[in-house]
């Protein structure tokens, strides 16, 4: 919520008890962690750009959460949010990322050659492969907080960087506010178009302000590498293609990201990254690699097996419907991707997807033949 530090100073005239939000009916990470003591300690602080505690938590106050899905309930307004409000955010990060400690270090590995296999997933089962992540650009505040001037500057810099790419990455930018109807239809047909957020998780965090100003989609001519500008993060980078060669998808992902990063660094606006949190993004759930690598895979028999969910948990994978998060699967086809983001590298996370999906396809084949799979069930990774 872009109220900023001046509005916060006025609120300091009121007592902690009077300002503390009512979180009695809430079920999100922020509500579990925030106490009156922490609130009292952090309420007069602000980041250099003026982002305050109430700004961080507004989305979690406005969205009590679902009894079964645990949302994060807070966002960062800039890179410094994670430092200035660490008394609140460190416990939330630990909770969300499997006990990650404030002293832990995160390793980044974008060398696709370190991935083993991944080029031979059975295309009769694996219909498509995709890897996505986000990147924030140093020197600008994040989507919940940035002004129109900043957002436009981010767009300008991103477009300069992307349109300078060549070879397999040669492509074009489509700004949301000036695309033609024909361009819009094409982007919808390619499943590339993103729309104004409707989820209150995002709108209550101020991320849809001034829509569609400064937002757009860039993709390469091959339609296999795609960048979203100024949606939930400064940049969302997506590499995808049909069938099961996730190795090739990951190669293009790594190569493309490195090329883009070089260009931003030359302009003195590298990506936000640090040793402890890895890549810094708007939502604490995307810290670390920010990577979700996955496939659409046909598992009609395995998905109805009693041990399916347990197998996924042990493989450190998660399932979603083919419409994305919170959708149901259609025709036994699932979106299977890595569950982790922080505490393991990109290569390690994609390796889990490669190995896990390979194993599950073999299990599916066994079940088709009427054979049991109990001996194949893996130990916890």
């Amino acid at each position, binding site marked *: 919520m872009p109220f900023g*530090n*001046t509005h916060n100073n006025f609120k300091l005239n009121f007592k902690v008890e009077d300002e503390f939000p009512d979180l009695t009916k809430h079920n999100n990470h922020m509500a579990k962690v925030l106490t009156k003591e922490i609130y009292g300690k952090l309420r007069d602080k602000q980041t250099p*750009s003026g982002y305050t505690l109430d700004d961080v938590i507004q989305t979690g106050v*406005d969205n009590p959460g679902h009894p079964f899905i645990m949302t994060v309930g807070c966002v960062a307004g800039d890179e410094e949010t994670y430092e200035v409000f660490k008394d609140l955010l460190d416990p939330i990060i630990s909770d969300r990322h499997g006990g990650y400690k404030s002293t832990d270090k995160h390793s980044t590995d974008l060398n696709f050659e370190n991935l083993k296999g991944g080029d031979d997933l059975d295309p009769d089962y694996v219909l498509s492969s995709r890897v996505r992540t986000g990147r924030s650009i140093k*020197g600008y*505040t994040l989507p919940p907080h940035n002004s129109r001037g900043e957002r436009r500057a981010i767009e300008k810099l991103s477009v300069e960087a992307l349109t300078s790419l060549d070879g397999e990455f040669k492509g074009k930018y489509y700004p949301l506010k000036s695309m033609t109807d024909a361009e819009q239809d094409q982007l919808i047909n390619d499943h590339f178009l993103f729309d104004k957020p409707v989820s209150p998780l995002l709108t209550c965090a101020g991320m849809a302000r001034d829509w569609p*100003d400064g937002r757009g989609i860039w993709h390469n001519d091959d339609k296999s590498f795609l960048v979203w500008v100024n949606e939930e993060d400064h940049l969302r980078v997506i590499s995808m293609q049909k069938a099961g060669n996730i190795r090739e998808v990951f190669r293009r992902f790594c190569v493309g990201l490195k090329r883009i990063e070089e260009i931003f660094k030359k302009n003195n606006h590298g990506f936000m990254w640090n040793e402890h949190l890895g890549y810094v993004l708007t939502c604490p759930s995307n810290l670390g690699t920010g990577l979700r690598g996955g496939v659409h895979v046909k598992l009609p028999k395995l998905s109805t097996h009693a041990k399916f969910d347990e197998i996924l948990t042990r493989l450190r994978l998660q399932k979603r419907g083919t419409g994305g998060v919170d959708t149901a699967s259609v025709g036994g086809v699932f979106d299977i991707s890595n569950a982790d983001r922080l505490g393991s590298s990109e290569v390690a996370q994609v390796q889990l997807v490669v190995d896990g999906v390979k194993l599950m396809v073999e299990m599916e084949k066994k079940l088709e033949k009427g054979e049991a799979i109990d001996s194949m069930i893996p130990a916890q990774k």
Partner: protein
Amino acid sequence: MASSFTRILAGRNPAVLLAGLGAGTAAVGFLLSESGALSAESKRSLYPPSADFPDLRKHNNCMAAALTPAIYAKLRDRVTPHNWTLDQSIQTGVDNPGHPFIKTVGCVAGDEESYEVFAELLDPIIKDRHNGYDPKTMKHPTDLDASKISNAVFDEKYVLSSRVRTGRSIRGLSLPPACSRSERREVERVVVTALGGLKGELSGRYYSLGDMTDSEQQQLIDDHFLFDKPISPLLTCAFMARDWPDARGIWHNNEKNFLIWINEEDHTRVISMEKGGNMKRVFERFCSGLKQVEQLIHERGWEFMWNERLGYILTCPSNLGTGLRAGVHVRLPNLSKDTRFSKMLDNLRLQKRGTGGVDTAATGDTFDISNNDRLGKSEVELVQMLVDGVNYLIECEKKLEKGQDIKVPSPVTQFKK
């Protein structure tokens, strides 16, 4: 409790004043701290108003029509005593380009002082929305003497129900777009305490939105009293749904004909209503109730936001002045089919809505007919105009029933001479 303008400068940082003196021409390197962080104040130099000016080319609302780069540049860095800014005021208008046929206002006030601090923008918007009312030169009349109303008991063969609503803001506390949780809770405390002092036909009770039982909620729904979290982006983009349902609630009297909403789109919305055509009684209760509530908050040192130029101060500039919408649900089966119906309403300074409220379609031949104007005429004048207008429409309906002809009335004058 009352704010003062001396606080306008209280929230400003010395760095801003320095920047204003010419430090703003410094290079980016100077403005960034060692870690590369951009301070809030140095952003003002790095991003001049022209970099932040919104793209309003596809917009059709009062704010987009009035905001120029020059006005924006002048007002962008100003702050009200409650630390509310221009960007916050106009966010809803930037986020909601508007409909080609309906012209929305496109901005809100965060506090009483917004109307002064951002007058360069809000005065032209007020003029546009309120038919040429000029806050710089005109005075708004307030008159809540219900005894002055005549001919206000309608034929119940035609008028099914009568209703008058307005809003009131508590001076010294920020309005719904800007208020902190403690301010909102203070509004609730002040108003609920005052309402607890009402007696006789006005005595009643308060239902807090967060604490009501399921059966209380069902009863309020059945009585058509319950309001819910705003979903309209016009309101959500203006930050009015924050912290829902904290400090929101509904108060109504035991007779269920006097109702107050707390902390929805305004600090309070006050509604007097009953079935049938006795608008006189509805307005009497409205005026009496408002006066009693005002007396009760005075006793504790509070008052309503009001001034001579703008009348009662409310969140949306469209509700300034009286904030009053007086209306009836009326059956006009023959007249509504007459091609002159719309013109008649225009000349009588009335508007029609469906019986579900604004933007709903009429069901059958029953319409919600109410006053168009809010600012520049008093409550008594507006209610009398509504009464005269509805009486005229009913006369026409009766004439058409008998096969007689009707005349379009001449237009009512806009402002008091």
